[in-house]
């Protein structure tokens, strides 16, 4: 097992790697060398894409964008622990998880370009539900999907991402309770990035989020969210539990949002740069890269190759994205119902002149 680290609140935090990449426990998480390298590759690709999105937003090519820098391990480690038939229910900051699931980055980013709402990709084919902005509401969708999978006799599971801010919403409670009551194969995965826009964790809850789990009747694990191996291990255990019919799990990944809440936010108004610097020193990619190079699973050339791949990839993404125009105006009307009623057909004609 990975070493639990006890923080000052007395609740253990699972960790496989120290911030300098040194193993602090069992680092055997059930991945072969290729699987281990894939985690690093995804994190490098994700970070490069995230930074490109910030640039694209500043250049006016994207509308408001919520960056995830600092949270790569939490997202990649958890998404990589799922199988192709599983279903992810994201909130709105899970682009890294999306690309691990195989969601096309350009299709996903149509949302942030303002081309379409939160489901511009195929949610069912990719196993990645539409981007969900109303805080915590996606958690009950995941419970419903998981219950549906269970009723089908499938061993697939759902994983729902939510933030520390969402843990204060009623839908978190309803989802946790319903999941436990129905023994639904669902993982409630919290990325506690320290801040709900401007409100710090200490002003949001008085006990660890993971500590709530026993009260619902499910295991709760807190994990170092900047340790991709620990995240993978904790998620994998929860997935196995779900597949075995043992019901839901709650995982709280402690991580940090290095950037603003969104490009419309100015974090210097509410937090210390010193705090950000402390977390920069805990960078999940540096930590994991050091580990892989120390144990000889990857050499410096591997990371360099991933960076080169990322550079070429984001170039393609950028080119395709900026070439995207608005969909036909008729689409404002065409997807509201399977068959638009007469009253809506009349409005469509009025708007489009019968187009």
């Amino acid at each position, binding site marked *: 097992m990975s070493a639990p680290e006890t923080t000052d609140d007395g609740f253990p935090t699972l960790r496989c790697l120290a911030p300098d990449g040194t193993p602090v426990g069992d680092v055997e998480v059930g991945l072969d060398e290729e699987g281990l390298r894939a985690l690093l590759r995804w994190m490098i690709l994700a970070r490069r894409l995230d930074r490109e999105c910030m640039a694209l937003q500043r250049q006016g090519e994207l509308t408001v964008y919520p960056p995830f820098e600092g949270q790569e391990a939490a997202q990649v480690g958890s998404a990589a622990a799922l199988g192709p038939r599983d279903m992810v229910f994201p909130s709105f900051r899970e682009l890294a998880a999306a690309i691990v699931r195989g969601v096309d980055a350009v299709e996903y980013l149509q949302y942030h370009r303002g081309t379409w709402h939160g*489901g511009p990709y195929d949610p069912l084919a990719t196993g990645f539900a539409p981007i969900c902005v109303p805080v915590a509401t996606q958690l009950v969708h995941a*419970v419903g*999907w998981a219950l549906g999978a269970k*009723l089908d006799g499938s061993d697939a599971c*759902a994983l729902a991402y939510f933030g520390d801010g969402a843990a204060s919403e009623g839908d978190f409670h309803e989802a946790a309770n319903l999941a436990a009551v129905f023994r639904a194969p669902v993982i409630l995965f919290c990325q506690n990035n320290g801040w709900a826009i401007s409100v710090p964790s200490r002003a949001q809850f008085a006990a660890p989020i993971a500590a709530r789990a026993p009260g619902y009747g499910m295991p709760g694990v807190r994990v170092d969210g900047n340790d991709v191996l620990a995240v993978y291990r904790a998620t994998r255990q929860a997935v196995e539990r779900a597949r075995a019919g043992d019901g839901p799990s709650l995982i709280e990944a402690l991580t940090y949002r290095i950037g603003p809440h969104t490009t419309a936010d100015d974090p210097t108004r509410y937090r210390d740069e010193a705090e950000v610097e402390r977390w920069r020193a805990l960078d999940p990619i540096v930590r994991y890269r050091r580990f892989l190079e120390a144990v000889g699973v990857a050499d410096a050339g591997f990371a360099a190759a991933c960076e080169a791949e990322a550079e070429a990839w984001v170039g393609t993404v950028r080119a395709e994205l900026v070439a995207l125009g608005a969909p036909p105006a008729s689409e404002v009307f065409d997807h509201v119902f399977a068959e638009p009623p007469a009253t809506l057909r009349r409005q469509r004609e009025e708007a489009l002149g019968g187009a």
Partner: protein
Amino acid sequence: MPEITMVGALNAALRDALDEDPRVLVFGEDVGELGGVFRVTQGLQAAFGRDRVFDTPISESGIAGMCVGLAMAGWRPVAEMQFDGFSYPALDQVISHVAKYRERTRGRVGMPVTIRIPSFGGIRGKEHHGESPETYYVHTAGLKVVAPADPLDAYRLLRLAIADPDPVIVLEPKSRYWSKAEGELTTEGPGIGRARVLRDGSACALISYGAMVARCLEAAEALEAEGVPCAVVDLRSLSPLDVATLGEVVRSTGRAVVVHEAPLTLGLGAEVVARVVEEAFDHLEAPIRRVTGWDVPYPPASLEQVYLPSVERIARAVREVVAY
């Protein structure tokens, strides 16, 4: 042919839907063992098992939210909100997700979700048990909203709602749950989006839905005796509205009175009046009147008849419109 109550007809609709489509699920608070506080789901769990008919915790937002996930997983959820006044915690899920999922996913993921809500007043209920929530749903794009007025149409509308590829809110008039009708239970006949003309009459059109349809029919009966023959239109489908039928009827009567239990201001009557004016302005002989609940919270049992449109209030409005 035996008589059937609206509760019996709704129960039969659920039973037939569960029987015909193995993807239909029925769930909500107390719908399993108990059969629902109004017994609409009576016997269904015994007949179809605990996987397909099940109780949930008291968790309205969760119930509506689970509908979204279940629909994504290929199921056809039919959820019950126990009372109108307890459906509000689910509004976020209904408005933000159930109604918008098809559009959000550019048509890829539909929401064949039915949410049944025992609604409206007239049962001497306590606070929160006599609400008319229709405007919240009608005002939400992406939802269909129906309200049956009699047992046979309740069967038809609920079956059509469950079979619909899009979400349908079914507002069941509690005060008509024990009303009886005789006839064949069938899905044949007017679909969602169609109104029914229950009675012809040349002097004035009474336009209503849900429990107030019975009062309109009663008023029409009394007015007929006074020599004022009224047409009665049962809207049934509050969204989409059957604008064509409304226009047709009012073009023939030239006069109309709209009746509903919901408060006056921004009640469905406001929309009906606007549509009728758009459709039949040149044919109107008098201003259209609305007979509705007042702009007050639903009153306690001892005073609910002060609030609800009475046969006398309806008849008086018709007389005024006809005398205009």
